[in-house]
């Protein structure tokens, strides 16, 4: 816009004489001829997002959309790549001086967007803010850090309460803010005025309409290839697809499965996919005789045979093929192979209705039983359709499932207070380490230890708990991996505490001219995108 206006005014100024006109034309011609490379650099990337980040304070609300947006404005000590491998971020290298002490050597000459230098004080401030600020939503990600010491401006020492190997992975999720800026402007200012060291700085945010990001020329990894990125929230699925088809946006996330064919048919567009680390699973209430949503006064899920029967009756391949249209990977365990702690050898029981019926009969439920299945209907793709398909599969062995599909605001509250007996939930292992799932979903619920809050089914086993705790306090990765695999052998292969269903695939609609590699974290990192030559 600006350049066009300048041109116009220039033309007007020159337009007095015919000679000037010719000059102007020549100037225009040279501009056009010299254009291509210059024009390609100036091309704005407009992105349509399914969810608008509600805040740009990276420590406040840790929803996926917020973290994804903040990953462009802020940097962390450690980065992870598209396949969850860690590599140096603001910290150039790190070492353990003893199992509890981590020394991070920070990058030199890194500057915040306001020009002030980045130092160890900012690291200390950010980690302490994440840990202690009353509105922090990421306390659980730094809770094992007991102390942050500034050794010198380029060195910072972290002390943990127990030996904790996945620390570096967790640190990717703790963006570094400027101490001076936050203290000068106040905590509440950060939600709308983010200022970090990241590859983009926020130019403007018109709520509900768009964000404009401008590349940070001073970024330590070099300036991003795309100079300007405009991010527009387009929550309505049809609207998002229409904006891509009409060329108004060049990248959209969460493409509805039914629109993928339409997008692929367009030569100027392509569909890109990336398996996510999210596991959609079924939980079963198994630690109490009286369960809130089961008819009768016995709880069948307390019997291992019933849980095994449910696992055998569910046909994951059919769910993936018919409900997810192939945009998912059947899950044999709780995390994909890229995640540390997954077990290449672990296989599910398969699909076998006869065996399932036999087990139900042995358990004393030859005619099945009645239970309510709680599912969200606005949270992940096809959540209520999956519940219906599971219900019809379970009906084949006589389990009568009544579906309670409701918005996540209702279902999360039911699950958080365990006012549920049976249903679907999910866990995203996007940190690349199984420990978060194990700590929160597989370990017995214990408020004192801060573990097992999302263990909706109430599963608990001493041996498995011990293995989980052991893998949470070791720096020996090999040992940890073995302990985590063994834990999963117990709670999944032996006790069938859950029934993992599938890993959904993230679907992006992309303009053919944009080169972009989707990440397993599902974050959109614009600094790693570029226009194809």
């Amino acid at each position, binding site marked *: 816009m600006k350049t066009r206006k300048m041109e116009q005014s220039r033309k007007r100024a020159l337009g007095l004489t015919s000679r000037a006109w010719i000059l102007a034309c020549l100037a225009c011609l040279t501009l056009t001829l010299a254009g291509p490379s210059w024009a390609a650099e100036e091309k704005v990337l407009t992105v349509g997002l399914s969810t608008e980040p509600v*805040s740009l304070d990276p420590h406040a609300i840790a929803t996926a959309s917020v973290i994804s947006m903040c990953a462009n404005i802020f940097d962390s000590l450690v980065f992870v790549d598209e396949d969850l491998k860690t590599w140096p971020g603001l910290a150039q290298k790190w070492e353990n001086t003893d199992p509890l002490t981590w020394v991070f050597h920070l990058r030199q000459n890194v500057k915040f967007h306001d020009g002030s230098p980045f130092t160890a004080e900012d690291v200390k401030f950010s980690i302490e803010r994440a840990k202690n600020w009353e509105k922090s*939503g990421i*306390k659980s990600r730094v809770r094992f850090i007991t102390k942050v010491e500034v050794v010198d401006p380029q060195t910072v020492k972290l002390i943990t309460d127990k030996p904790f190997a996945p620390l570096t992975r967790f640190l990717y999720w703790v963006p570094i803010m400027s101490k001076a800026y936050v203290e000068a402007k106040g905590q509440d200012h950060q939600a709308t005025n983010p200022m970090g060291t990241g590859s983009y700085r926020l130019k403007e945010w018109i709520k509900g309409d768009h964000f404009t990001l401008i590349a940070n020329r001073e970024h330590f990894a070099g300036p991003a290839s795309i100079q300007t990125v405009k991010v527009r929230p387009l929550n309505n699925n049809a*609207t998002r697809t*229409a904006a891509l088809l009409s060329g*108004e946006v060049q990248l959209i996330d969460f493409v509805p499965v039914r629109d993928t064919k339409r997008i692929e048919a367009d030569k100027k567009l392509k569909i890109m996919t990336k398996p996510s680390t999210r596991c959609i699973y079924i939980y079963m209430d198994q630690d109490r005789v009286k369960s809130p949503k089961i008819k009768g006064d016995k709880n069948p899920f307390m019997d291992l045979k019933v849980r095994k029967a449910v696992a055998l009756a569910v046909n994951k391949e059919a769910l993936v093929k018919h409900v997810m249209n192939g945009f998912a990977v059947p899950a044999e365990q709780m995390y994909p192979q890229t995640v540390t702690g997954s077990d290449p050898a672990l296989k599910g029981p398969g699909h076998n209705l006869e065996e399932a019926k036999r087990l139900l009969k042995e358990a004393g439920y030859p005619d099945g039983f009645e239970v309510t299945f709680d599912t969200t209907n606005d949270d992940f793709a096809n959540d209520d359709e999956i519940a219906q398909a599971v219900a019809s599969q379970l009906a084949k062995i006589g389990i009568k499932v009544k579906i309670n599909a409701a918005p996540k605001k209702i279902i999360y509250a039911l699950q958080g207070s365990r006012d549920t007996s049976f249903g679907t939930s999910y*866990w995203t292992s996007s940190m690349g380490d199984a420990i978060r799932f194990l700590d929160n979903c597989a370990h017995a619920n214990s408020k004192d230890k801060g573990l097992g809050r999302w263990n909706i089914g109430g599963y608990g086993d001493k041996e498995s708990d011990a293995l989980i705790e052991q893998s949470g306090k070791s720096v020996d990765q090999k040992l940890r991996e073995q302990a985590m695999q063994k834990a999963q052998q117990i709670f999944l292969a032996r006790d069938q505490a859950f029934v993992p269903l599938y890993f959904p695939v993230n679907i992006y609609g992309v303009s053919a001219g944009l080169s972009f590699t989707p990440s397993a974290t599902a974050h959109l990192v614009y600094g790693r995108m570029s226009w194809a030559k």
Partner: protein
Amino acid sequence: MLSYLIRRILQSVLVLLVVSLIVFVVLYYSGDPVELLLPHDATQQQVEEMRAYFGLDQPLVNQYVIFLKNALHGDLGRSFIFNRPALGLVIERLPATLEMAFLAMALALTLAIPAGLISGVRPKSWPARIIMPSSLVGISIPTFWLGIMLVLVFSVSLGWLPSSGRGDTVSVLGVDLSFLTLDGLRHLILPAITIAVFQLALLVRLVRAGTVETLLEDFVKFLRARGIGENRVVYVHVLKNILIPVVTMVGLQLCEIIAFSIIIESIFAWPGMGKLLIDSIHNLDRPVVVAYLLFISLILVFINFVVDSVYSLLDPRIRLR
């Protein structure tokens, strides 16, 4: 006039009290905002701390009393999600919504009055034969379907107009307006037409019915007997008499567009208040929902006041009492 105003304000205070109470009770029983605010890997202690921070650990009655106390001091609370004053969030979205609503209504009104008069005065003429059936179509088309179709035709297929968003804005006295820029106007066209079609169809039928009825009245015969020109009879005297129901309808419909054009705002990704409301309901962001409904009630009271005032302008026999 003054007593009328005071009574109106007292009535609306009562309405606001009831509205806020209903919102409190309904949202209290429809879930837990803290579960939405915190990730699943939050610890139990973290959940309890946040609940206490927002005062959600208090019994419902206490929460309401605290809210009332703050509201009396002009503080409608801070959004749980956005961490900003709730009323500010609502007001920030106001210009976008008003802009769309007024443009749509102006479009509908300027077309509906002549079209309705023509089809009332000459029901057998060819314009009337086109106008009346199409008004039926206009009333029956679901708005969201029309919106999606317009996007498919004019944005995806023809590429003439943008499919969504608000486009460039200019700041006038601190208010961002898009209808003053070319790009903004282009963004406004489709949503405004989508809303206007139903309003237009409704108003055409109303104007036509009024015209047919008024033309039969005695005063029209007297006017004609006095030799007053047909144009003057229709466009001055008849029009003035049919405007009262039209003004009522415009007032009511305007209220509805402003307060609840949620579907249109969602289809066109229009950053208006309706979208904020629906998001806030989904996120159980109670302060915003309450602030929104209170604010919108005030606007509705104001529009109704304007409508009442227009009555007495149109018909001096009506007095505001």
